[in-house]
């Protein structure tokens, strides 16, 4: 009975198909059209952004060197228990591997990887490779120990076995100031090597300081831009945008000229009699923050300005007419409406500051270098791409965690760029 009544109640379109089905079809068509429009952009981002980032993240755990250069040795060590030097088969495998690496000129790569875990052994591995290539028949154990006694101790074999695994946690641990010892226990590195925790704290600290500085400096500017008559406002806007048209490197170098001990600011202050002696304004934290704030200011000001422009001035006037003092009117009526712009501008500045490299490198001292400096150092000069990627992974993780917290506090839907 109910079903009959229900079927009698189905709404149908002009050609007889149920409305619900028709709606579903139209919706699907609309969704496909939307997907079709977005698809090129999505593919582009996938290829130029997601894939390279994914490769970088993969390099942080990738461990190709030893499996590529010493495969037989790794296989021979599979059953080894880790105590005392291994048996003759492992040495024979090592000599066979070395003969091949000498032919391919890859012995130094194996040496470099082993050197990461056992400092000072790179040259020993290279020397062993050269000597092993000359050996013809066994027993190889005594011959290798005669080349260097290190081959008779367990340490280097533990390292080879560990480095023979396809994936490693070594770089990620090192980027967090941790290491594995010979018995596979994780512990902190020596205090004079533990720098990365401090570097991450420093990076977050500097970024936060710069964000707050741009907020306090930028809010009045944005307010001015949004409330003056349009003609003057546009002129001032051009002044805000002008630095954007100059290269970042040129702006940073300009700050070097301004902040130098014999530079413009010191000259002005000393000749005006405000300072007795020249002050150190560059190659320290102060100089770094000043230069970074200047460069990041437009990024914070523009979202705030766009949002402020949409706030009608009648709101504040209404609040005043209802009896609120000027500060109360601002704080209770105007400010909450600007929060989406503030949120967008600050987030943009914060995340950009996390990745800063050039400005601290030119204007900061050695104890002001942020994470990106070390990433660049490991990429370009040490050729240790595993370490560079690991630092990048941790920075990415930290940024994601912070964004998650930020989202909880402010909410992405509450951000507006205009």
């Amino acid at each position, binding site marked *: 009975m109910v079903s009959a009544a229900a079927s009698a109640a189905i709404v149908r379109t002009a050609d007889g198909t149920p409305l619900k089905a028709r709606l579903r079809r139209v919706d699907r068509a609309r969704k496909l059209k939307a997907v079709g429009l977005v698809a090129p952009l999505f593919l582009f981002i996938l290829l130029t952004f997601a894939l390279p980032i994914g490769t970088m993240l993969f390099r942080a755990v990738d461990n190709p060197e030893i499996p590529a250069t010493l495969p037989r040795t790794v296989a021979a060590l599979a059953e080894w228990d880790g105590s005392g030097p291994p048996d003759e088969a492992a040495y024979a495998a090592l000599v066979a591997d070395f003969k091949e690496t000498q032919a*391919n*000129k*890859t*012995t*130094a*790569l194996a040496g*470099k990887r082993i*050197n990461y875990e056992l*400092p*000072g052994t*790179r*040259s020993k591995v*290279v020397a062993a490779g050269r000597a092993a290539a000359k050996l013809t028949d066994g027993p190889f154990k005594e011959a290798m120990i005669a080349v260097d006694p290190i081959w008779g101790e367990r340490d280097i074999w533990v390292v080879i076995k560990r480095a023979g695994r396809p994936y490693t946690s070594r770089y990620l641990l090192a980027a967090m100031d941790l290491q594995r010892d010979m018995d596979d226990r994780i512990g902190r590195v020596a205090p*004079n*090597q533990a*720098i990365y925790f*401090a*570097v991450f704290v420093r990076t977050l600290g500097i970024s936060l300081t710069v964000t707050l500085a741009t907020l306090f400096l930028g809010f009045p500017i944005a307010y001015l831009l949004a409330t003056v008559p349009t003609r003057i406002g546009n002129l001032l806007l051009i002044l805000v945008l002008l630095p954007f048209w100059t290269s970042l490197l040129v702006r940073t170098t300009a700050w070097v000229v301004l902040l*130098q*001990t*014999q*530079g413009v600011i010191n000259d002005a202050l000393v000749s005006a009699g405000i300072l007795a002696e020249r002050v150190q304004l*560059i*190659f320290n934290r102060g100089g770094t923050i000043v230069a970074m704030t200047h460069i990041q200011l437009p990024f914070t000001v523009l979202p705030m300005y766009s949002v402020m422009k949409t706030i009608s001035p009648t709101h504040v006037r209404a609040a005043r007419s209802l009896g609120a003092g000027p500060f109360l009117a601002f704080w209770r009526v105007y400010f909450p409406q600007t929060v989406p712009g503030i949120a967008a501008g600050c987030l943009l500045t914060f995340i950009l500051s996390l990745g800063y490299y050039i400005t601290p490198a030119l204007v900061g001292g*050695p*104890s002001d*270098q942020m994470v990106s400096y070390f990433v660049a*150092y490991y*990429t*370009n*000069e*040490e*050729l240790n*791409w595993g370490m560079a990627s690991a630092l990048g992974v941790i920075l990415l993780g930290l940024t994601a965690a912070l964004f998650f917290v930020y989202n909880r506090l402010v909410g992405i839907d509450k951000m507006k760029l205009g």
Partner: protein
Amino acid sequence: MKTKLALTGLVAAGAAALTLGAATPAAAEESLTIVSWGGAYSDSQREAYYKPFAKEFGVKVVEEEYNDEIAKIRAMVEAKDVTWDVVDVDMDTALQGCDEGIFETLDYGKIGDRSKFVVPSATDCAVGTIVYSTIFAYDADKLADGPTKIADLFDVAKFPGKRALQKSPFVNLEWALIADGVPAAEVYKVLGTPEGVDRAFKKLDTVKSQVVWWEAGAQPPQLLADGEVVMTSAWNGRIYGAVKNEGKNFRIVWDHQAPDFDLWAIPKGNPDLELAYKFVAYASDPKVMANQSKYISYGPTHTDALPLIAPEVLKDLPTAPENMKTALTLDPQFWADNGDQLRERFNNWLAQ
């Protein structure tokens, strides 16, 4: 509507024809990409090598700059897309690159007599081009009574003010030990021990707060000219360039100078190998090599080139007898073995 379409079609066809037409002539001339360190040094190479080579062989020389970023070369070689034909490398990079298979093993038959090059500068994968030296310099206009020995660089009491040092343990550790009293002949023996390394870092600690760290060769003369530092370590040719071309009154202190080599290397998998060899052979000709000392005070590495240099230029070269009196002999093997840990220790020390 139809005329609009026709017009757009015509414009598009015209643009396509223009680009195609413009593309073909450029491919006719051969081009060689040579990478070096920039600044006054590259200027001297341009005058002494690139311009005459381009004129004589009708090859276009494209210059590029780098600052010891061996990673770029490694990336190119790994991707099998080598665009740098010849690279000017320092000794450390030459040895490291050769070990890791980044550079071509050189066929000296195409370059010249290997025995005629000053001893360590003709390596398997790179052939020497200049002898340069790490020295320290000061502005004689600001310090009338300037420093005379290496210990003065570390003496903040006698010569107050900031110093600039290269952002690398290389040479700085040796100098720290010598300033601390270790005889130059025993420097590497002491540096090979953990206590020796600690001693060098302790000496560097005494000046750490007063040091500005430079990375690019053009920075030391700039820092000196800006008055940012009172003395700076530098590559001697760059200071000479500031004195000769910009009229600065800088003085070089040759005490315990550290002479070293720059070499030409060819990245592995280079598609233009013959042209690269032609350039290296041309640049290794003693007559051509001797020409470079006219533009910058770096010495030649070919023994037949030294007698060809004018005497008034000779006195500014690192290899001049009066400058070599207390010269420090660098040990590239020591740095190949221990460079990794010492660099890591140095970076950690800097970051703390």
